[in-house]
């Protein structure tokens, strides 16, 4: 598979994600500039964490207006795989590719910690290698990670099995402890925790590896 890691000005987990693909699951990967106009030839698009445009105004808000986003939207609409992590998740909600919004943590403080997540839906292309309800340990590092949506949207998320990860302990005040969701079609995943920081035991956990492996295993089976 060939992945694009989209680099926005101020992204700072772009290389982490790049190495996660290159060394972690040994697939082809390229950094793609935010001014690029095409995602032709890629099988998956990854939007990294960081502080695009300094997170000024609202996290992800300004990044949602650069040239590459039209192409990301097209890519998602065609049912291709899009993964947004942390700031990437924020950008995806700002783009409307995922419902809801990410707002400042309940205690208004940045939080960096390894947290336990529960895999709520292990039927997605991103989570096939996890057990149902498996508890995994993945780091978070965010100041604006409180997931919010209105009641109707929450109902919909539940009905369509779009909630993929929940925090075991509600660290940031997210509605329904939501840590990660997909779109209705399940080809776009956004999550606040950083699986790309959890690929090796020496870094504290390798529970993130299965997420990336799920993607390639799915591809293998379906091609």
């Amino acid at each position: 598979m060939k992945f694009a890691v989209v680099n926005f000005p101020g992204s700072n987990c772009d290389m982490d994600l790049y190495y996660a693909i290159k060394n972690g699951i040994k697939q082809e990967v390229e950094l793609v500039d935010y001014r690029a106009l095409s995602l032709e030839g890629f099988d998956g698009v990854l939007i990294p964490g960081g502080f695009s445009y300094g997170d000024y105004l609202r996290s992800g808000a300004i990044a949602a207006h650069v040239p590459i986003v039209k192409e990301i939207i097209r890519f998602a609409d065609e049912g291709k795989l899009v993964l947004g992590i942390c700031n990437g998740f924020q950008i995806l909600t700002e783009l409307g590719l995922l419902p809801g919004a990410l707002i400042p943590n309940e205690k208004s403080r940045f939080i960096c910690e390894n947290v336990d997540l529960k895999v709520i839906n292990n039927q997605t292309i991103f989570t096939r290698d996890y057990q149902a309800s498996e508890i995994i340990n993945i780091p978070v590092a965010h100041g604006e990670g409180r997931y919010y949506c209105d009641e109707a949207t929450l109902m919909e998320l539940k009905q369509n099995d779009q909630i993929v990860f929940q925090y075991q302990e509600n660290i940031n005040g997210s509605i329904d402890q939501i840590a990660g969701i997909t779109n209705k079609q399940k080809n776009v995943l956004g999550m606040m925790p950083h699986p790309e920081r959890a690929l090796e035991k020496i870094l504290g956990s390798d529970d993130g590896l299965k997420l990336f492996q799920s993607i390639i295993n799915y591809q293998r089976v379906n091609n």
Partner: protein
Amino acid sequence: MPNKSSRVIAGPGEDAGILDIGDNQAVVFKAESHNHPSAVEPYQGAATGVGGIIRDIFSMGAQPIALLNSLKFGPLKNGQTKHLVNEVVAGIGGYGNCIGLPTVGGEISFESCYEHNPLVNAMCVGILNNTDFKHGTASGDKNLIVYVGAKTGRDGIHGATFASDEFTDTNNKQRSAVQVGNPFIEKLLMDACVEIIEKHSEWILGIQDMGAAGLVSSTAEMASKAGSGLVLNLDKVPQRETEMTAYEMMLSESQERMVLCVKPEYVENVLDFFRNFELDAVVIGQVTTDNRQYKIYHHDELVTDIPVDSLTEDVPEYDRPEKQPQRMIDDKNYHFVPEITSLKDTWMKMITRPNIASKKHFYQTYDSQVKANTLVRPGGDAGVVRIQGTKKAIAMTNDSNSKYVYLNPFVGGQITVMEAARNIVASGGLPIGVTDCLNYGNPENPEAFWELDKSVEGIATACEVLDTPVISGNVSLYNEYNDVAIYPSPMIGMVGLIEDIETLTTSAFKAADDLIYVIGQTADDFNGSELQMEQLGQLKGNLRDLDLKKEKLHLDIVRQAINQNLLASCHDLSEGGLAIALSKSAFENDLGFTVKTELSAAQMFSETQSRFLVSVKPENQGSFEKLVQEEFELLGRVTNNQQFTVTTRDTTFSLDEKLVKNDWKEAISCLMM
């Protein structure tokens, strides 16, 4: 101070020092204080302190890999101090998190003398892959001076002199000079500078950060180093505000700006390169070699024409009177004798003292893992970051214990260095170099000058023994408020090399039945201790001389034990002594211990130097004891019953690990409410 070793590529005098770590790589680091700016405007003061130290590292062509900080405040008693602490911590996190560098270590302590004079020291460590690169000079006739980065505003006019002004009630309202940081721009600037030096170093002759005192300092310094002259045109300088005078532009301390010296044939490449990062980049002047004059034009008028060296080399030197502080003479033979009626109660009290309690409330607001290379995060002894593509890692720490330096500046200076070394060694690293921030009161006061002089001597003698050159650093004087000075507070930033990450060691006990040892003798060292502060409420007495030979021996023993894979855990003994070290080692994996010793209850809190707490797998007992010879005491074992069971010469008790840990964990959050 010693500034030479076989590893030194660049020492003091540059933006930051450089040490060879083999494989054509070098480690670059420096610490800097931002005390006064943080006292005046805590968030921005701390943030721009972090921003400034990062620029010092990438202007050397190094890729920054990690940040640390050392903070000192007054007691967490009033709302004002809490606000100050919150804002400083938020500023440090705000900048570091946004730019995407992990904050992997540091320290925070609280003493009354810092109430109006907080100390905010920040350190940055980077890796240099192009060890040939020459930085920081502006040489060669007709070579061009290029300005890159944020626009110039009236920020921080007079900041450099202001920073060293003594604080008094009356001028604490001086609030016009605040610089504001923009970490987003600095991220672009950092990436661009690192890339241009790695990939296109032939385009540029020099690069320098516009630090304190702005454009004048930085350009004059570059010209002076190269022995050349300079012509600048201020009309070309990107400006954020209108109608700035030449004077304001030259002295502005607007952040996130760099100057480069560029060969004319590459100037378009350089400008395009930076503009591709969406950064302002313009030619503002050129190098001259016909005479060594520094000339500035503004609105077509020559506004300055002076010899370059008059701006840089004529630093006044002072020879100041010094005098031993009276307290040292008065209290020379005083020995604090603690009184412990219940070891259990004292244990619980000590564990919640703000200087001992967990600092997680603060450091969990720093991203410590971004870049996915952090092997040891805050909370351990030293922060450890691996170097991608090698087996190596860098261990780093910030240490200061100003209570000791106050009681005996010479010995205190030595202890500060050795405490840093113990943190590095306990992590499995070899100490290779030092940076410092020397934070003191008014040097015109003979006693303060004596403190400065003697503690620097102490630092120097300790660095000599360790063969750790002091390759960079910074001095902050006049830390006084209404004539009351802070404790003399040298901060040591130390960097260690871990050749093979397999030898990485952490402070947490690993498994039940492991044997617990203390390396080093414990004596009645209570002067300057946290126990003295707890019971007497003040510092008093002298310190024993530090036996540097013994210290070195223990450091070497621990290194050998780690290299032979004999230690399951290793922790240095610092504030609160054995009792606190035992507790902290147990917390991470929720283990307990059973310990029996001939020491007295009070000695459990003695702060005798040169000691380590280690745990050893039972099968390694023989090899370990053979290696350490008689320098150890076997204390007991790690248990998995979550009980701390302690028998001393005079008492025995048992405590629930969960209870102790909870108090230790929550103490700071409670105080901050």
